């Protein structure tokens, strides 16, 4: 049983159909930290490891990503740095993720230091685990309202700020579904959209390279699986299920966006959509849609027609 897409087209821009639909996103808790190191290379290595296995709260405990690189003048210790954002269902679930990831991936990384990366009245413990690695030799230095812990390690001292800022107004799950008739061209277009989104502050795209190829629906025929493949957007199932895809679509890629604010997520979707519209048609992109659950689960709805350039 094959059917055409049930979603109406809101507009066609540069030959790309924009669905009259919306991305449905959820309220989350978020935090930001700054990783510094002796070189930009080692700050990036450390941040990459820290944010690894951080694609989805469903299976990873937290959604993590690199927000931006920081110059020495922008970091607390005057060294090259990276700002990392982490998102979780709640402060209670985010806290242990922060503690474990920093303890295993930042404390261990040569020359690293770890600082708060989000100004907020709400706080999350940042040093509560890693500082005890000092086995009693850790010392604190309070400067103004900030407390820094100095933990003796084999290459000197690991410096970690006591608290990180916390927001409970973060948003997770902003998304774009990009459909195309050429897989390589679709990937290039989606990469361009991810690159555009990366320039927006306060957001991350937590999946590999910022892109998801396994869009999911809630639930499964199998007990215990919280999510399963979104058959309506799987081209190979077009003839077998109630498909959302027309005959020209051979692949769909998704960009999932988490942000510290709803505005940041909205702006990310806007620039991502623009990037697709700017370069997509020549690369075989035919359509842009967005994922939702009928609007009943998530508090944040981002309508594509409102985000058109």
């Amino acid at each position: 049983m094959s059917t055409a897409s049930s979603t109406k087209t809101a507009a066609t821009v540069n030959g790309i159909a924009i669905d009259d639909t919306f991305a449905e996103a959820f309220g989350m808790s978020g935090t930001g930290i700054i990783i510094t190191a002796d070189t930009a290379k080692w700050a990036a290595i450390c941040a990459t490891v820290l944010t690894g296995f951080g694609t989805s709260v469903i299976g990873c405990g937290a959604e993590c990503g690199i927000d931006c690189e920081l110059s020495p003048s922008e970091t607390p210790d005057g060294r090259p740095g990276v700002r990392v954002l982490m998102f979780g269902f709640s402060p209670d679930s985010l806290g242990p993720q922060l503690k474990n990831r920093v303890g295993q991936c930042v404390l261990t990384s040569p020359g690293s230091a770890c600082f708060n990366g989000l100004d907020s009245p709400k706080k999350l413990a940042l040093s509560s685990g890693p500082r005890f690695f000092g086995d009693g030799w850790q010392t604190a230095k309070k400067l103004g309202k900030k407390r820094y812990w100095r933990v003796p390690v084999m290459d000197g001292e690991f410096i970690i700020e006591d608290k990180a800022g916390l927001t409970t107004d973060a948003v997770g799950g902003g998304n774009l579904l990009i459909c195309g008739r050429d897989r390589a061209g679709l990937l290039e277009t989606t990469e361009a959209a991810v690159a555009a989104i990366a320039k927006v502050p306060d957001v991350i795209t937590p999946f590999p390279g910022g892109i998801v190829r396994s869009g999911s629906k809630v639930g499964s025929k199998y007990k215990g699986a919280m999510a399963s493949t979104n058959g309506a957007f799987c081209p190979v199932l077009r003839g077998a299920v109630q498909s959302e895809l027309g005959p020209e679509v051979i692949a769909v890629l998704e960009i999932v966006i988490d942000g510290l604010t709803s505005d940041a997520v909205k702006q990310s979707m806007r620039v991502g959509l623009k990037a697709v519209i700017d370069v997509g048609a020549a690369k075989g992109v035919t359509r842009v849609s967005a994922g939702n659950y009928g609007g009943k689960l998530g508090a944040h709805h981002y309508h594509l027609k409102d985000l058109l350039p």
Partner: protein
Amino acid sequence: MSGLTFKLRDASAGRLDLSALVPHKLAGLDMRDIAQIVVGKTRDQVRVGDVFDISGTSGDTLTFVGTTAACDGLGSELESGTVIVEGDAGAYAGRTMKSGRLDIRGSVGDFLAAGLKGGLVTVKGAAGNFVGAVLTGEKNGMAGGTVIVDGDIGERAGDRMRRGTIITRGKTGASAGSRMLGGTILAEGGLGATPGPLLRRGTLIAPSVARMTDTFGDCGRHELGILVIMSKHFSTTLGTLAPRPLPKIVHRFAGDLATSGKGEILLTG
């Protein structure tokens, strides 16, 4: 900047306790009330009006002119606003001050900023013994805030100090940081003999030391990132009053090993 000015008319009145003359304690009082405040330390009951000419209007700034080393307690328990001292100050200046700013344009006696909790204290001249120290009967000394002394400071600065920063452009006397529990003492002119006796935690920083305390262990030269953070903090919060940026590599001595040994003396020279 509105405020009252107290010009010392009679410097022969003996020791004066001026701890009642801070903005929050004078709020709501008229000139007559203020003139009646007892500031003498003897049975003569010397009052403000007996020794000071008062001018100006109530506000968040008090200025003292012509003060001497017999004027104790200036800026004591200050909670907000500014106290300016155009002269010398006696003992206990800035004692247990919570916030605001105390500027002393002359020199100051013992126990400057003893038990300081917050705010900024600056001294153009020298300071006596026990800067930022614990007061008799109290558990800990300075617990926050910043003290900047352009001249030398006396012995046992920071005695049982717990938090905050003491900076001197000159030298400290002997035994700076005695029994210290935390915080930072930065002596741009060098540390006097035997610094940090029974130092538990906290940091003493100087280019040199007159004689190192025997119970400190030589840890060698190290690059400490915290010094960059501290320099940045000083620069941001103190502006032109900030000390010179600290070098990243310093010679570290851990101690006092006669106690927990988690404190340190960092020699920048």
